[in-house]
């Protein structure tokens, strides 16, 4: 029996040792081909991600973590310039709006794909018109195109189903990445999706562990990077990412814990990169049930006055968020800096008493995401001071969306804590979550006047007039209708070793690592 035991132990030992040593740690192997004399850059940069990377196929998911990696490998026709936060051409050199429903795009010449072929309109047509309609993530966008006309190898025209003055933004959707037609014809789909025009090529993916990319030496869509290899390592725990950075195991960490911000910014070895996120976090009122107290504008005003947003920011984001005064997000085009409804505990108290809601219970739903739980917990605590009891139900994110989009007047939901991350253009800010036809109208606002304003603003070609319309929308919604109480836009952060440069933070989390590099001495 001793033998059995010894054998068992030995087997287990060998197995785990072999398995351990055999596991592919993203190697920092040397291959430095930088000639001496010129600036010497770190060969491999390792980035610790919080969420799991799952696929390189841009049409498969819309998860930001995937998009970050996909963005390095596969390019889009237009994309957000992260320095100016405006929509610019990426593979497209420039475009012309012949009419709101007729657009002509001119591709950049000589763009190389990883497989050696050169980008032309056929690749675009294949990606948009052949692959696009099959993919649920892309179909909605390409459905806008009534007719795709190839003018020459580098020029194409899109005739639209309906006029859209912001059509260029459409091509910034990640699902509309441009891929090589030749690659799809010559290799299996799972290989072909890895072929793009980006500055990095797909190297290896170990699920749950890491994904690695190598420099595309013949890159013409962007400058050839100074970093030879990028490794995205998945470390879900924030404290673990921080340790990894401190121990020099990684060079960059995404979303460090708020408690580590000062450790990063005050250190000589590290830096804290920040930007204000575009996501608007807000408390929405369910306006469907006329009998509910939340249907009373006075109550909504009282809640808006009652919330100490600064305290909530401290509770939910440890202070790292920008308090919102308007329903519209700051960096979205045509933002007007309105005052909104300031914190007024006395006014709120008086209103609550007048309404006779002290001692009553209001039902709130939200998801189990960390900051939402914290917001809800703090909201509950703040309202408890006014004597208003908040009964919170936490649910999984998709369950929440399902409930909020399909709930009838009888669901009992009165409040919800949700967020909205508008992309691209100002219309996006209002179309879905506020327009009565919008798919994510969580407050179930049915206001013809607002609908008319949204429609008018979207079709307005004159930018000054458009700005006025959006300001009117902001003031009406924030101060009069109060379908939401906007709380804050969270600060997005990244930690990096000193000397790491070229990272561009994206307000909607699709950060760019195209230029990431670290000078070494």
């Amino acid at each position, binding site marked *: 029996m001793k033998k059995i035991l010894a054998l068992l132990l030995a087997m287990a030992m060998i197995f785990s040792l072999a398995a351990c040593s055999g596991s592919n740690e993203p190697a920092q192997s040397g291959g430095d081909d930088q000639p001496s004399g010129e600036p010497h850059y770190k060969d491999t940069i390792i980035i610790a991600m919080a969420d799991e990377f799952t696929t390189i196929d841009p049409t498969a998911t819309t998860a930001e973590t995937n998009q970050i990696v996909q963005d390095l490998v596969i390019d889009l026709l237009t994309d957000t310039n992260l320095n100016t936060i405006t929509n610019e051409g990426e593979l497209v050199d420039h475009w012309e709006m012949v009419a709101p429903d007729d657009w002509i795009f001119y591709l950049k010449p000589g763009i190389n794909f990883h497989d050696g072929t050169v980008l032309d309109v056929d690749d675009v047509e294949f990606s948009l018109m052949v692959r696009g309609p099959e993919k649920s993530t892309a179909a909605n966008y390409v459905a806008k195109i009534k007719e795709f006309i190839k003018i020459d190898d580098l020029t194409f025209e899109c005739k639209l189903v309906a006029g859209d003055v912001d059509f260029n933004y459409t091509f910034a959707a990640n699902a509309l990445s441009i891929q090589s037609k030749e690659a799809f014809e010559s290799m299996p789909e799972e290989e072909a999706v890895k072929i793009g025009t980006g500055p990095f090529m797909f190297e290896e993916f170990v699920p749950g562990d890491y994904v690695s990319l190598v420099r595309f030496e013949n890159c013409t869509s962007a400058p050839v990077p100074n970093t030879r290899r990028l490794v995205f390592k998945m470390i879900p725990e924030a404290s673990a990412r*921080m340790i990894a950075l401190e121990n020099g195991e990684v060079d960059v960490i995404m979303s460090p814990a708020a408690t580590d911000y000062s450790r990063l910014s005050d250190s000589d070895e590290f830096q804290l990169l920040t930007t204000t996120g575009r996501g608007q976090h807000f408390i929405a009122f369910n306006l469907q049930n006329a009998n509910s107290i939340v249907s009373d504008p006075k109550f909504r005003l009282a809640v808006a006055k009652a919330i100490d947003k600064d305290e909530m920011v401290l509770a939910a984001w*440890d202070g790292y968020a920008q308090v919102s005064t308007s329903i519209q997000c700051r960096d979205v085009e045509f933002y007007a800096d309105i005052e909104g409804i300031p914190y007024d505990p006395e006014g709120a108290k008086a209103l609550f008493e007048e309404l006779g809601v002290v001692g009553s219970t209001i039902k709130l739903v939200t998801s189990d995401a960390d900051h939402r739980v914290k917001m809800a917990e*703090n909201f509950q*605590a703040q309202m*408890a001071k006014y004597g208003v009891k908040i009964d919170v139900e936490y649910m999984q994110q998709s369950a929440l969306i399902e409930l909020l989009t399909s709930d009838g007047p009888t669901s009992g939901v009165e409040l919800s804590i949700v967020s909205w991350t508008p992309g691209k253009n100002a219309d996006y800010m209002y179309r879905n979550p506020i327009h009565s036809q919008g798919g994510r109208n969580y407050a179930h606002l049915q206001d013809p006047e607002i609908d008319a304003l949204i429609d008018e603003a979207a079709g307005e070609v004159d930018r000054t007039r458009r700005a006025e319309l959006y300001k009117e929308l902001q003031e009406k919604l924030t101060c009069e209708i109060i379908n939401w109480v906007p709380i804050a836009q969270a600060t997005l952060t990244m930690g990096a070793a000193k000397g790491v440069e070229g990272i561009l933070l994206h307000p909607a989390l699709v950060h760019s690592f195209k230029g990431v590099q670290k000078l070494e001495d």
Partner: protein
Amino acid sequence: MEENTNRISLDEYKKYKKRSLAADVWHNYKKSPSAMVGLILIVIIIVLAIAAQLIYDYEVDIVQQDLSQRFIAPNTEHLFGTDQYGRDVLTRVLYGAKYSLAVGIVSVAISCAIGATLGLIAGYYGGVIENVIMRFCDIFMGIPSVLLGIAIMSAFGQSLIVLMLAVGLVYMSAFARTARSAVLPVRDQEYIEAAKVAGVSDLKIIFSHVLPNSLSPIIVQVTMGVANGILTASFLSFLGLGVPVPAPEWGAMLSSGRQYIRDYSYLTNFPGLAIMITVLAFNLMGDGLRDALDPKLKQ
């Protein structure tokens, strides 16, 4: 010759006279110091849990926050310090005792009620019934308990009741198995046979003859089950699937303190310690009961 038997004194006779089962168990139980420590700990925890209910007002002491008082390290005013919302950790740990106790005890009551009944029936009737019941239990045994718990919590949503049910269902099969194997040796005893011949109904036989004679392992399983139930429930809460916040369930406290562990490790240590002591107390009591119920097994 006959008078010789009178040499046994009345006192001696009393000594040998059979005590009631409970008294007998208690007599054996109190001999073990560790078992007594367990019992005393449980009593203290229950008393504290009840006291916390009486002293603290949920809406004020648990729900309300004071962000100006956040992250105060343990001191004389806040013995366990304050958390990220400026709430007193000691208050929360004390108030939270009721969740762990409730989940542990109720979930075991559920799993015992269902599991032991199934086990008794399976063991008593045997044959096809036994096979069907035990295969049914195999289904639940085969799924890793934590995963089953997570699946149930996801299906029915977060709440104390669901948590109790989830933990109860997870451990149901274990009870069924214990009860069944406890019944097997009793089933073939002659007094059961005799009762059957006498026309006593099956139900009566099970409850008045089979159950009392196979009670010991079930009682031990109950105590150990409470310990396991508390651990499982706290893990589910740790994953964010337990009692929703701001209820100060210990596992949930550990989970929310986790991101601050580097600078404020007391946020995780106090709830962790609370879980461990409670589980330890039930384990000690379980050990003690096992030894007391079956002196043969005493080690």
